[in-house]
């Protein structure tokens, strides 16, 4: 019987409809990500979070930059925009301001959002722009073959730091907080449920929400730093602690000590759009309502 069940399960007959298929451009699956790549689980948790939030999918948009992670926009069955390297946030800003009814999710890589795109990130955070930004942090530039990123650990090996990275990585939640983000969380791909819940929470609040997701790039980062995919996942498991509401300033920059995960900031502050409408377009603001 077990044998029969197995056969049935593993065929494509009857059961092949994955719960997320409705949110996927299935004609483009399998995606281009390498075996074991952490973008897939991040993407999948994001989709589950969007679904769980109950937002109207017809007015939900995904915007990505360029990179392996940025390819996500090409797989989601939502209005989706795959822009230029580093520019997803300002593109998304224009989109959100032009049509405030849209729920705009930016999904992109660490290089895209924090190397070339770092300025847009800090300014959108400062403005408390009404966006949800999800960063796949795989510690390197996957797409171009594994160069150092602004998130690459000190002394890690990449193709442009062959003897080790002389620089230190950003602490992304701290940077987001310092810039003015009003929702900040960090998870790993192993923390699928927490991640999903953070996405869900971010989708239903106003203002700027940022979620960092630690995700393996086994091919380009892992290979050069003796991290097979399962080793990376194990690190996420044994070398992390969850401290919700931890002060971002106390998050140890990656290096020694466990990586702190959690939802660090969740602050209620007037978002750009609500402030703009109040100040400049009182004619549009719903009367008597904040």
């Amino acid at each position, binding site marked *: 019987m077990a044998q029969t069940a197995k056969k049935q399960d593993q065929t494509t007959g009857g059961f092949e409809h994955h719960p997320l298929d409705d949110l996927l451009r299935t004609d483009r699956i399998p995606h281009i990500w390498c075996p074991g790549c952490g973008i897939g689980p991040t993407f999948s948790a994001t989709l589950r979070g969007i679904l769980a939030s109950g937002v109207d999918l017809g007015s939900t948009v995904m915007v990505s930059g360029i990179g392996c992670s940025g390819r996500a926009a090409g797989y989601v069955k939502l*209005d989706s925009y795959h822009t230029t390297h580093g520019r997803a946030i300002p593109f998304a800003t224009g*989109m959100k*301001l*032009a049509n405030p009814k849209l729920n705009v999710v930016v999904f992109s890589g660490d290089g895209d959002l924090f190397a070339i795109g770092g300025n847009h990130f800090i300014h959108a955070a400062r403005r408390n722009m009404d966006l949800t930004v999800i960063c796949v942090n795989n510690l390197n530039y996957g797409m171009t073959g594994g160069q150092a990123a602004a998130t690459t650990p000190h002394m890690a090996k990449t193709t442009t730091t062959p003897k080790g990275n002389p620089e230190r990585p950003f602490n992304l939640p701290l940077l987001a907080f310092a810039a003015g983000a009003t929702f900040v969380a960090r998870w790993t791909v192993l923390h699928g449920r927490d991640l999903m819940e953070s996405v869900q929470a971010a989708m239903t609040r106003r203002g700027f929400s940022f979620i960092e997701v630690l995700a393996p790039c086994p091919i380009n980062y892992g290979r050069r730093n003796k991290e097979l995919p399962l080793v990376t996942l194990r690190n996420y498991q044994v070398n992390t602690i969850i401290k919700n509401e931890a002060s971002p300033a106390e998050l140890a920059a990656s290096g020694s000590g466990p990586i702190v995960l959690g939802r660090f900031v969740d602050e209620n502050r007037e978002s750009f759009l609500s402030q703009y409408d109040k100040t400049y377009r009182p004619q549009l603001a719903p009367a008597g309502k904040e």
Partner: protein
Amino acid sequence: MPPVVLTGEHYMTGDEAIAEGAIAAGCRFFGGYPITPATEVAERMAHRLPGVGGVFIQMEDEIAAMASIIGASCAGVKAMTSTSGPGFSLMMENLGLAAITETPCVVVNVQRAGPSTGLPTQGAQGDMMQARWGSHGDYSLIALAPSTAQEAFHETIRAFNLAEKYRVPVLVMTDEVVGHMSERVVIPEASKLNVIERVKARGRKDRYRPFEPGENGVPPMAAAGEGYCVHVTGLTHDERGYPVMTAECQESMQTRLFAKIERNLDDIALTRGFFLDDAEIVLVSYGVSVRTCRAAMEEARALGYKVGLLQLLTVWPFPEEAVRALAGRVKAFITVEINLGQISLEVERLAAGLAPCFLAGHCGGTLISPDAVVEAVKRALKPGGKQ
């Protein structure tokens, strides 16, 4: 609520006229970054837009400004930015994104003398070739060049109309002098203005293919949130908008992108002729230098020289036929522009050896003087006279 169209007679700068033209054309999003001498466009938009239900945002730089207007346009709203040389250079990458994704948008360049920081408060027309070639790869776009504040108003409306009609970025290439000069601008009633809207996606949402050409080779456009579930990418893509990494897809995509402009040259490539019928010498000019030409033409005609003027209201796509048609007939072309020879190269190419071509130009900081043009006319008429 302030009026949407500021009907009536005004004394305003070219920069202000551009802002008013944009509002009248239906622009409801402006993402900008200050830079002399374009700042006044942004400042007026900051004042005006919220009152007509639009949004103004000052972005962190010109890259972001350009990205934001593409995003806004993809959300279904007419969008514009304005800048000058240094900022224009920074917009080049995303200008290519607008071109390949066929996103309507208007970029105003109030030119100042470069290169680099150059003379920030003084005019030039040194970014004309950059307007055509400044982004990487092959692409096609439209660039207009008003010569007065009144033209600035109307050409800005035309810019939006062309952008929306052909789903293409349109550049308004003006300069510090027109931008900062005040003069009379007469704004008609809203009902008298021709304002074109983009062709929107219609029909069954599951059958819509975002890059399948409609009429004139232009695909109807679905905005985000309209339920068409589009995918838009800066990668080479097929009619579904999906990336396809082959030379064949590149060929078919690019062929259409170029054809939609080329096939509609009659509608796009606007010129205006002055005294061309009997002209022996034709001045070719655009933007503020047209003013020099018109003054010089009067002076030269008063001296008995048969001088005409071909004003390029559209500079890109280059109105090739207008020059070709004259080339066999005239004694010489003189391109008048505030640069060291940019559009003059196109004129020379199209003259194809049928008429000698001269340049009355300099590298900026002031207008070309009418005297310099009159001198050039005299020289061109001297037998064997080469400049």
